[in-house]
């Protein structure tokens, strides 16, 4: 995403309805008619630039404020967080909301652990299955290949939400009801169309001569995959892992339906539980502390790895 392509920039930025700087082109035109008046046109572009940043800045602030507001509220004292009317900025810094959160229900640690467990299994499973299948699809011909690939892509057309009810029955039949493993299996299944598609394309893109050289040197097929090709498709692997992590960390519906036991709950279920409140009284401070805990890991990981995310969109998601 680093390189810029100029023409589309102008086209869009200049589209009449879309940008406050839209008035620039006619003015520039007039300037040309009046002869070169560089200083004035520079002043004008400065004005347009200020307009651009003013408008964009307000919009960006609107997008960031809800998150900032949740953080601010979470570090207010317990009384201040529930005060009416609310304060805009914390009058004192306090971790009382987080302390309350730490002992809520089974304890914050349990829910955090469950969330990391669910995400960990989902990421590991998605990566493992996608890499193996992507390699198989890319390097082998075998009976039923097209059928299996088609069935995998069909998952995209049939969102798992519509098959939740029978999943409930099927998972029960294989002994995975009320288990984080069962939920992880659903998360893995749902990520597979994207993961397999992306990994197959990644393997297709590396010359198989490299693997063949390894085979000549006495590697087995599997060793060639592990030591040679896997390194080359690593960016794709990171992308698959990132998508899987974000999806499973945030997932609400599947844990809600498949986990019945408080000690199994993940963070999204726990924070929605906070909303129901003890004795009908909602503690907004603890609630927003919970939101911060649930959001922070995924935001941090996204910010660290965002180029892989966009890369995944370019190479996989949008071409499926």
């Amino acid at each position, binding site marked *: 995403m680093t390189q810029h392509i100029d023409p589309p920039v102008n*086209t869009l930025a200049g589209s009449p309805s879309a940008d406050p700087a839209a008035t620039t082109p006619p003015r520039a035109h007039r300037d040309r008619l009046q002869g070169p008046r560089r200083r004035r046109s520079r002043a004008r572009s400065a004005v347009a630039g200020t307009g651009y940043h003013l408008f964009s800045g307000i919009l960006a602030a609107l997008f960031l404020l809800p998150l900032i507001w949740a953080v601010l509220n979470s570090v207010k004292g317990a009384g201040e967080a529930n005060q009416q009317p609310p304060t805009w900025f914390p009058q004192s810094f306090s971790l009382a909301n987080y302390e309350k959160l730490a002992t809520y229900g089974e304890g914050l640690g349990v829910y955090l652990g469950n969330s990391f467990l669910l995400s960990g299994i989902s990421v590991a499973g998605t990566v493992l299955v996608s890499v193996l299948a992507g390699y198989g699809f890319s390097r082998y011909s075998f009976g039923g290949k097209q059928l299996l690939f088609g069935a995998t892509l069909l998952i995209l057309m049939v969102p798992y939400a519509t098959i939740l009810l029978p999943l409930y029955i099927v998972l029960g039949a294989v002994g995975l009801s009320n288990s984080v493993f069962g939920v992880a299996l659903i998360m893995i299944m749902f990520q597979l169309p994207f993961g397999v598609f992306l990994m197959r394309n990644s393997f297709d893109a590396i010359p198989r001569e490299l693997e063949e050289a390894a085979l000549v040197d006495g590697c087995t097929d599997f060793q060639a995959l592990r030591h040679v090709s896997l390194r080359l498709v690593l960016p794709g692997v990171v992308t698959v892992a990132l998508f899987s992590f974000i999806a499973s960390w945030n997932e609400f519906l599947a844990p809600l339906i498949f986990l019945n036991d408080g000690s199994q709950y993940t963070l999204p279920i726990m924070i929605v539980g906070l909303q129901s409140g003890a004795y009908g009284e909602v503690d*907004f401070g603890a609630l927003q502390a919970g939101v911060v805990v649930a959001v922070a890991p995924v935001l941090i990981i996204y910010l660290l790895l965002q180029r892989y995310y966009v890369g995944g969109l370019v190479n996989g998601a949008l071409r499926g």
Partner: protein
Amino acid sequence: MSALAPPPPDTETIVSPRSRRSSRSRRGNAGWIYVAPLAVIVAVVFLAPLAVLIFMSFQDWPLLGGPEFNGLDNYAAIGTNELFLGAIGFTLIYTVLATVVIFLVSFVLVAISNSRRRGAKFYRTAFFLPYVVGTAAAALIWYASVNDQNGIANDVLIKLGLTDGPWGFLNTPQQALFTVLTLVVWKFIGFQVIVLLVGLQAIPGELYEAARMDGANTWQRLRYITLPNLRPTLALLFILSVTGSLLAFDQFLVLTRGGPDNSTVTIMFAVYNTAFQQFDLGKAAALSIVLLIALVVLNAIQFKLLRPKDD
């Protein structure tokens, strides 16, 4: 991006089918060793439940009991089930509004993000960040911000002199729908912006050069180059937005809880209630199937819209 799959996407597609079919492609059933885990998961967690769903929709099946065949009764009952009919109607309205609003706002945000000015990258990230926030967490942020006791949104409106007391963001069906729409725009629009940016940058720059030489103005370049080239991307986003909206659930369960007066119950919400509150699996399955068929038809349309352009 340079760290990703080295060759650009286009060459990849051209090369890959050929190399896959090359004589060096390893044959026999050894490939099954690699795809076996995938096959097991697809069979057990996808195809089997799909089959059970179809079976289920023809049964009278209480959650804590056994199934009993009742033909098309479950489907016929959809027509007289007020919860279902209300849910279908509301979901359609919500889908239209959410899609239209997200499309309109996203064009403004794309124009900002695609600028060459310094800071454009920061704006782009700001617009996208909410997308990685979970829907449940996002709905709770909204819940804390719009509640009547100490919601900051009410306080802002009061300080601006727009309202005397709490505005009641969730009081009437219209207000509740409006509030959820602000939430979904905030939460989901970043994805649309990024995808549109990717689509824009894939348009060859020479096209614009040539058009400019021919004297095309800004509007003409937008109309005859940008929009036609963006058509597959727009079609894809349209389908994704419609699909996502038809399946909306989390934001309503958490923020409005279907209220006031069941006015914001979506189809998935009705499925959830019927199966896990009323314990009627058969009826819930039939409604799921209806939703599923709608989605498959939508995808088939998308397939038709997109493929001719690609090839």
